């Protein structure tokens, strides 16, 4: 009897609980490209500031590569401004953020967005550098605002290549959970959600399971 209950519980976990887990991973990992990291002793300030970030789970500083890798708590949204401030207050310059995100895709006003599951519901515009090509998406002019980009609404309609749009359309229809790796940046207009420049995309769970891109 007990053996049967264990088997049933195991089956429940494997079939119901585990497929749901990735949807809760949301912002999984962030890699910060930090300039000015010259010595381990100075990097302690970065440790202090990163540990105060709401969402910080663990971190690793790679001084020789000028990178800081952070694992992120599943139930926390991503505040790019807070990360930028943390690096600045530590005495360094944040040059870029690359992230690994998990969520579902939606389409709003013709634009594709990655939406983190409830209760966070944080949204990210999706784009590809190759699709944007020469479209205006200017970076902030001064160093302080380099992580904030302009957001040209007119030029963002085709921010993704056709194959990607088709794949994301199917993902929307199938309610597919995707894992996306790419650079993330904020915008000068704080109302505009941050954007993720897709570098790789992986299907985490869906009825059709169409594999990686």
């Amino acid at each position, binding site marked *: 009897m007990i053996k049967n209950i264990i088997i049933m519980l195991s089956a429940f976990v494997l079939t119901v609980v585990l497929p749901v887990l990735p949807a809760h991973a949301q912002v999984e990992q962030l890699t910060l490209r930090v*300039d*000015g*990291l*010259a*010595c*381990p*002793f*100075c*990097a*302690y*300030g*970065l*440790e*202090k*500031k990163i540990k105060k970030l709401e969402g910080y789970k663990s971190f*690793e*500083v*790679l*001084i*020789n590569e*000028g990178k800081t890798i952070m694992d992120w708590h599943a139930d926390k949204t991503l505040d790019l401004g807070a990360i930028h401030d943390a690096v*600045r*207050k*530590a*005495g*360094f*310059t944040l040059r870029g953020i690359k992230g690994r995100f998990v969520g579902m895709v939606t389409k709003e006003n013709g634009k594709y967005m990655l939406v983190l599951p409830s209760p966070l519901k944080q949204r990210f515009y999706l784009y590809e550098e190759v699709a944007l090509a020469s479209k205006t998406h200017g970076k902030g002019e001064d160093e302080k605002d380099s992580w904030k980009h302009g957001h040209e609404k007119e030029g963002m309609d085709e921010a993704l290549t056709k194959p990607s749009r088709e794949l994301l359309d199917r993902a929307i229809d199938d309610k597919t959970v995707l894992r996306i790796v790419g650079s993330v940046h904020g915008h000068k207009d704080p109302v505009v959600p941050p954007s993720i420049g897709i570098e790789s995309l992986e299907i985490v769970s869906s009825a059709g399971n169409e594999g990686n891109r």
Partner: protein
Amino acid sequence: MYPLPLSALLILVGLLSTPVLAHEPVFSLGPETIFEGGFGIEVEFEFEDAKGEQLAVMNYEILYGLKDNLSLILKVPQILGREVGGETERGLGDIEFRTKYRFFKRDTLGAQNKVSGIFGIKVPTGDDDAEPALGTGTTDFLFGGSYGYESRTWYHFATARYRFRTESGSRDPGDRLFIDGAIGYRPWRREYLEWDLVTLVEMNTEFEFKDELRGVRLPDTGGNIIWLGPTALLSYRNIMFKGGAQFPVYENLNGNQDSSSVRVVFAAEYHF
């Protein structure tokens, strides 16, 4: 009353040029500031032997990062022993408060260029009536600037400081100018949470103007000294040990003054 030997005065004021903060030179100041909201404490032992006079001081320093580019530093010197002509004194020296404002910084991958302005004030908390004196009896102001380059392998610094010394009674001690340079090398490019060693060669040039007594310049005061010597910085995470020795490679003192022979510093610094 000013029977204070001039060489002793020179040495005591010289101690006020000592350092704090991260990878800055051991015998000078660099452009480094501590991170915003960060605290640091440093305990620093100094010893100087200048022909017949020996001086040992323990400096206690507290620093705070008001902003990432603005640090405040309080230095309290405890003179362990000052021996002049067979007389020895010990006690509190002159307390110094210093600020450092980094007004330029350029970060690149694994390197920083930065320039800071320095302002400090030393108050006469040391007993200048003691024999020998524990303080100069003057309120001094320090102005300066420091440029520094730090990379994963090489370091270099250039610092200029001017110490303006007020009058004390009928005596007006000569101002002092410090021109410092240092070159550092990291033999192993260690990662965070590993021991990290930086070795440096530091050169410090000191120019001291003559003292005046009731408007008359004293001939046996002032002069120039160039110090040179190796130093090292050894750190792990938020703890740093540093130390070194310097020797006078050039000395041109006015009149009849004892010359210096060596100065040594050992320090431990902790950030939190």
